[in-house]
């Protein structure tokens, strides 16, 4: 699939330059293993997005989600390599050095070179990971000029999707999940706010979530590239029926989208539109 | 006292740097306030211990005033101190006291007043006052006898 054009993370897809050398000559085996970590981290990020598995994460349908996924793949590989190395060290130490005699072992307490070594390597790794994070989060949070804008208002326990320019509103409450219809291939801006308590707008297929909060409007952009219907849900605990505060996202072609807008102009699709027009069901 | 003061002044330095960098990157007032509070938490006792440390080292100055000289460091700060160097009164430890329990019960009832009704506050406050009087008297008499 296509990475978004002008992706600045491409510039960072090189292995980290070598940090301190020297004074490490006595530690060949561990040094090579830890360099392997750094190399795998960089390699993972380099390969990400091409043909790596998603490592459990939902396959994204947005280009922003694609960025997140790449980062996740890089972190997952780095994390897995670190996990395997440290795991093996613990396992090796606990099996190899179990008591074999009553002799007192050497009472070693310090090894300064070794300690500096395992302080510096994690710092380098962390800085590299931070670099990738920084680039990726700027991509995910970028706000280009939108073609379509949707205002999402969360309330206890439902959603209101308002297409202001086209004067279309969709409302749904618990057990009557509303559907947000979005066009494929266009830049869509979603403005999020809450009518009452803090809610969380989460669509697994976006690989993204964002709080809907009273008094604050959060904006983010999605560029959808896959047709289909996807589930969404409130993630921030918001009271009694939090579990049922779900919705759907349907991605259609721009032509279908235009048709859908025409057929739904003026007025909501929900039979309980009146419920949410003003109060939005505050209180328990 | 040297390590203690360095420890606390280190906290102060760290939070000082973080407060400044956080303020100038975010201009967010709530978090900055809390970080400044943490800085003060390190500065105040840190300076106190630092001046004690200087006094132990023979400085005549304690904060801004002159005081008597204190000779020598505490035995717990010396690498080569022997147990016998700590001879003397360590501190006064009360054998037992009922007043913490009374005070605790008072606080419990007092806070319940916010939930169940103001009348409980009368009970709570009287328990707390009793405990305060009791513990003061106990300290003056020196123990529970």
């Amino acid at each position, binding site marked *: 699939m296509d990475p978004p054009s002008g992706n600045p993370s491409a510039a960072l897809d090189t292995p980290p330059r070598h940090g301190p050398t020297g004074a490490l000559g006595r530690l060949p085996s561990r040094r090579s293993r830890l360099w392997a970590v750094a190399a795998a981290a960089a390699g993972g990020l380099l390969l990400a997005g091409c043909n790596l598995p998603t490592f*459990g994460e939902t396959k994204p349908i947005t280009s922003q989600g694609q960025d*997140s996924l790449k*980062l*996740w793949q890089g972190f997952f590989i780095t*994390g897995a390599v*670190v996990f395997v190395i*440290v795991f093996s060290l*613990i396992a090796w130490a*606990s099996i190899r*050095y*179990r*008591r074999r005699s009553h*002799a*007192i*072992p050497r*009472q*070693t*307490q*310090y*090894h300064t070179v070794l300690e500096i070594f395992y*302080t510096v390597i994690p710092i380098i790794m962390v800085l590299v990971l931070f670099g990738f*994070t*920084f680039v990726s*989060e700027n991509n*995910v*949070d970028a706000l280009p000029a939108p073609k379509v804008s949707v205002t999402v208002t969360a309330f206890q326990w439902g959603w209101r999707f308002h297409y202001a320019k086209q004067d279309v509103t969709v409302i749904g409450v618990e057990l009557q999940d509303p559907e947000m219809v979005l066009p494929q291939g266009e830049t869509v801006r979603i403005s999020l706010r809450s009518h*009452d*308590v803090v809610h969380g707008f*989460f669509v*697994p297929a976006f690989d*993204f*979530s964002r709080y809907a909060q009273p*008094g604050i409007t959060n904006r983010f952009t999605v560029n959808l590239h896959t047709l289909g219907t996807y589930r969404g849900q409130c*993630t921030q*605990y918001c*009271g*009694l029926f939090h579990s*049922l505060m779900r919705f759907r996202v349907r991605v259609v072609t721009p032509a279908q989208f235009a048709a859908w807008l025409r057929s739904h102009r003026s007025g909501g699709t929900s039979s309980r539109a009146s419920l949410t*027009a003003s109060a939005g069901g*505050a209180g*328990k | 006292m040297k390590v203690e003061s360095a420890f606390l002044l280190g906290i102060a330095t*760290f939070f000082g740097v973080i407060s400044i960098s*956080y303020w100038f990157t*975010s201009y967010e007032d709530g*978090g900055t306030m*809390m970080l400044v509070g943490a800085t003060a938490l390190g500065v105040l006792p840190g300076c106190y211990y630092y001046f004690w440390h200087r006094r132990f080292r023979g400085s005549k100055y304690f904060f801004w005033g002159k005081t008597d000289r204190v000779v020598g460091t505490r*035995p717990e700060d*010396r690498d080569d*101190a022997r*147990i016998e160097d700590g001879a*003397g*009164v360590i501190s006064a430890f009360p054998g*037992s*006291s009922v007043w*913490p329990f009374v005070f*605790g019960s008072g606080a419990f009832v007092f*806070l*319940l007043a916010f*939930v*169940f009704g103001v009348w409980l506050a009368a009970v709570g406050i009287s328990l707390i006052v009793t405990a305060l009087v009791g513990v003061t008297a106990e300290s003056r008499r020196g123990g529970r006898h």
Partner: protein
Amino acid sequence: MTDVIIPQVAGGEYAHVHEEHGPTGLMKWITTTDHKVIGMSYMITSVALFYIAGLLALGIRVQLTTPHGTFISFQQYNELFTMHGSIMMYLFAGPFAFGGLANYIVPLQVGAPDMAFPRLNALSYWLYLGGSIMMLMGFGVAGGTADFGWVAYAPLSTSTYTPGLGEDLWIMALVLTGFSAIFTGVNLIATIFYLRAPGMTMFRMPIFTWNMLVTGILILIAFPVLTAALVMLFCDRHFGTKIYAVTGCHTTAGIVDAHACGSAVLWQNLFWFFGHPEVYILALPFFGIATEIFPVFSRKPVFGYKGMVFATMSIAALSTGVWAHHMFTTGTVLLPFFSLMSLLIAVPTGIKFFNWIGTMWRGQLVYTTPMLMSIGFLFAFLMGGVTGVMLASPPIDFFVHTTYFVVAHFHQVLFGTAVFAGFAGFYYWYPKMFGRMLNDRLGKVHFVLLFVGFWVTFIPQYVLGLHGMPRRVASYPTGLGWQSWNIASTIGAFMIATSFMVLLVNVWVSWRYPVPAGDNPWDAHTLEWFTTSPPPHHNYTHLPQIRSERPTWDYNHPDAPTILHRHGPGHPNGHGPYAGDGGGPTHGNGSAGVAPGVPAT
């Protein structure tokens, strides 16, 4: 008269000026100011609450075995996870460590006769007990317990949305326990600064004591913020202020007007400024426990002692600058700052890991229950730490935030520390506290069940989180393949529950058929193992000379001193008595315990 303790110069013997002839029975417990009794009361109370909260967790897990669970109602489910989280976080993990173990162990480890402020210490316990009772009272009032999650996000926690008495009780309970924690923090710091034995310099204190000192500082930074935030929340609920509340702030268009009302994000900022240090208040003491146990059962000193101390300090310092990584998805925080600070915590944590491994390296590992538990802690915390690094990256957090991935992550971290390391400490110090051993075989059964159950419970939750299952849901859609993972997780939870039944049996066995422990059953290193088990009223009748951070070891093994560097002179053929051979140290005269090579004066 007040008890005053004076060591006699002649033999280094401590003498009591005053013999105890105080009240007996219940009155004795109520009036006690002995840090050991208070510490034990703390531990018993917090472990009892741990069992209660564990039971609530089983309720949660049973509800989730079916997509549309009918085991309990939505309302009950919300109360259950709120109370599970609240009890575990506020009433078990913290108080068990810094109220219980630290209270008991720190004065012993620094050679002090008691805490610096014994009556304040007693007050801490009574406030804690009062707070615990108050929180549990929620189960008995109309409307049930608090049901806004342990984080009590405003404005859900304001009176418009959660008007009940249970919520008010929850707030007041936390005010009480908050003060209790602050008092204990002050007490620990004062004890460590002022009541160390001669020669016990700061850099000879055991790591456990160091960690408790740092934890004390963190408590002083974090808890006042929580208490202030709770007071403001209470004002919002009952006195009509609008600090967090948004009620009645809607414009005619039905939108919340930010200028006319309270701020939801303010609560999150305040809460997490407390909440993230709180996570380390819960973790650092348990790191300390593990750092006590690894050297003892590897029969080596702790590797990289100073690095360990500085790592602890760095973790604590960084932990107060990362609060908003819980708020990445609010869209109102400075992402790079908090992301970098959070990622950096991995560095000192990594140092600790390598130091623990370094301690075991080339040792003679003795697999008793405390050691097994500590190794369990290493594995658990490793997994939790690796996923923690992932969560520190905002784009990844955007996806997994408030899903089961986060639930699995923090359970691996907190369960790894508070349960594995916490009960490692329980097994380790139990002989010191009660003078009798716990059965090692039953302990191993406990460990195996716990360890297997732990992974079976939480690995499926990672998968669920990545599949997009949000946390705190009482029901979930069918057809997404979530049910089998949830069932696996529930099976694991029951294995954990079973393992804790084994612990109860073990304690019962140790009371019914006592096995005397002796003073130092593990051939341990630190000062608390020098005195009797259990220790006398003011802890020590005499002390060994303190010439390193492990005075008891120096006393028992004058032929095996610490080698400060790998290439220093060693004693490869050194051997000495071990538990079973000699049955611990005998109390010779106190001034004989001087490590060789160190000038005695």
